[in-house]
């Protein structure tokens, strides 16, 4: 199978010696030894030892596409929940509309859902997001479900293989936020089947042959496939 080792590691587990190996994501070094800092899967690229987390709250990175839910509208900005340890701020200058001062509620209000991008993160993790991009907009209709953020890569698949299979067999429009949220638009049955597929991916994230099994699952009651 792939050389992506599916070995589960736990915090404090020794992974290799420096400088034979180098510490990548999710690791720390003590006395020239590289250790895992969290629950995850071991992934060695060149000589870099990385840990791909299996669990954990979403940790924002600049440039991430996220699905946010507006918490409150203030005079010059909105506070948005992006399922991170911190709420994100969306400033009036970061939206494609011309907004009069204190008119923010007319455009986005509590409970509205948006597809946004992480703009800046400062040293104390204060977050700013933006809607200034053709790909970013307010979401309407459809359904919103949450998933374990650490399985984002599995949901997308290598070269988007997994998400494409899901879209193909359910004929739903799907937007996957890196922050553990998915927006799905389609008929009720299609939406239900997307939710089932996501749930299966979550529970079988570190297994082999998952893409094939998801395809099998979706093929079963698919009506017609282009």
């Amino acid at each position, binding site marked *: 199978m792939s050389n992506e080792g599916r070995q589960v590691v736990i915090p*404090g587990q020794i992974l290799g010696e420096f400088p034979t190996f180098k510490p990548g994501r999710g690791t720390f070094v003590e006395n020239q030894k590289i250790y895992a800092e*969290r*629950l995850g899967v071991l992934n060695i690229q060149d000589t870099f030892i990385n840990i791909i987390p299996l669990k954990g709250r979403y940790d924002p990175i600049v440039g991430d596409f996220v699905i946010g839910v507006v918490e409150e509208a203030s005079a010059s900005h909105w506070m948005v929940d992006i399922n991170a*340890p911190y709420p994100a701020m969306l400033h009036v200058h970061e939206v494609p509309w011309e907004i009069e001062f204190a008119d923010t509620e007319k455009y986005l209000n509590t409970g509205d859902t948006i597809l946004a991008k992480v703009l800046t993160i400062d040293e*104390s*993790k204060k977050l700013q997001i933006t809607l200034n991009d053709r790909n970013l907009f307010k979401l309407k209709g459809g359904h919103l479900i949450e998933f374990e953020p650490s399985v984002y890569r599995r949901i997308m698949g290598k070269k988007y293989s997994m998400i494409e299979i899901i879209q193909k067999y359910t004929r739903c429009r799907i937007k996957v936020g890196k922050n553990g949220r998915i927006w799905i638009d389609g008929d009720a049955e299609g939406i239900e089947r997307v939710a089932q597929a996501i749930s299966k991916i979550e529970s*079988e994230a570190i*297994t082999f042959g998952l893409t094939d099994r998801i395809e099998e699952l979706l093929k079963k009651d698919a009506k017609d496939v282009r």
Partner: protein
Amino acid sequence: MKSDIKLINNEGKRNDGRGPKDIRKIKIEAGVLHRADGSCYLEWGGNKILVAVYGPREAVPRHTQNPLKANVQARYNMAAFSVEDRKRPGPDRRSVEISKVISEALEKIVLTEQFPRASIDVCIEVLDAEAGTRCAGLTAAGVALIDAGIPMRDIPVACAAGKINGQVVLDLGKEEDNFGDADLPIAISPRTGEVLLLQMDGHLTYDEFNEAFDLAVQGCHKISEIQKKAIMDKYQNAAAEVNE
């Protein structure tokens, strides 16, 4: 008089049949709750402990936020029905103290610098109590933190040793805790041996202390293996079953 009660016989057999270095039976299960970010259910002798972890999440109220790292808040609570004589719900002074020493132990081991202004909340509920609940609580908390994906230097583990009828033993049971001569609960980072929690009451000579301390550390290492197995059962082996 305390030492009148026979807790261990001349052959070293304790009232519950254990030898001086035997730990009570422990069972650990990770990821048992739905809402919490991480959770763990643990049985240790007659103890039944459930731990839930939420976080990292924004620390509230604002003034408690530390701009450089996350706060780790453990809340140890005993259910009203967990003890022989019903306990009034709500924190009492003992629970507050135990919450504090456990919080401090966990703060040292969690990589808090990765989450400034955040809070990692550890809720420890004692559902059935039988001596050693703080050690059981901290041990379960270690597993719940892993299950929540919290980055840590190591997996904290705790165990107590004590002295009964003049002899140093491991993992005191209820009777032994009530009528014994000394109680020494400790928590360590098993990888480095660093002591994260240490309390003692009773009467130990310097040599007895060293003996009890070493015994407790040995206990911790044994229990550490059970913690790791619980996590592997949930994550590695569950996946293996799918592939069969």
